[in-house]
């Protein structure tokens, strides 16, 4: 067991590797909770329900044909495949693959810094967690 640095993270959206333009991935998973409390209980009880999740990718804007604007903006409102390798590429390392609805693409252009971008993704259906061969 070891701590893992994030610099090797790989993120691919719709089969395009965006890693070189990306500096943060927030991969959030959640589950519905259903209150099953009945009379006579002194505390709430719950059961789990459907799973859900979102992902947010952020990075530095690039004007290339495989850059974030050229790739992500046309995907707004569509469902595509997200491949997220938090530990990077290598045998035995995890890969999370899931379809996502691209719900937002944002560019931020500050006067005194690089143009940044952010994409919001709604996970749709199950997340497949596999080990890389």
């Amino acid at each position: 067991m070891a701590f893992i640095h994030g610099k090797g993270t790989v993120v691919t959206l719709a089969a395009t590797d965006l890693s070189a333009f990306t500096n943060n991935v927030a991969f959030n998973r959640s589950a519905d909770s259903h209150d099953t409390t009945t009379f006579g209980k002194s505390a709430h009880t719950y059961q789990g329900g459907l799973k859900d999740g979102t992902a947010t990718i952020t990075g530095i804007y690039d004007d290339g044909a495989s850059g974030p604007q050229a790739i992500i903006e046309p995907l707004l409102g569509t469902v595509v495949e997200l491949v997220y390798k938090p530990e990077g590429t290598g045998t035995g390392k995890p890969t999370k693959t899931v379809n996502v609805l691209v719900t937002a693409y944002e560019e931020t252009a500050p006067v005194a810094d690089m143009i940044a971008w952010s994409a919001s993704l709604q996970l749709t259906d199950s997340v497949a967690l596999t080990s890389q061969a």
Partner: protein
Amino acid sequence: VNIADVMDELGTALDTITGLRVHPYSADRVTPPAAMVLWPDPLDYDATFARGMDRMTLPVVVLVGRVDARTARDLAAKYLDGSGTSSVKAAIDGGTYSACDTARTLSATVGAYSVAGVTYLGVEFQVDITGQGA
């Protein structure tokens, strides 16, 4: 990013300022007015994943003459201008670069700088550089 190439290209950009002697390195002897492109401070790797982008701040020191000379003050003021033919910011920000993606003059500080035992009035410009990591 090859740092030496970036320093050379900054030197080329500064060469467009008439009369300024440009050293794209830390010279041990200068004749003012002279500019030196110094080592990055700091050089930050991994601004994005997968060695996509590195970022650094390069100091550029312009020495103009004796600290107490009015002519040195006036010359320093020209180099500090935000625009014009003697503007260091205009020369650097308007340069052509292939060794990096962007070069932008962030700030400048006026002070006394000693080179080879001689103290000069000088201006230290901080230049923000971004480029490909791999």
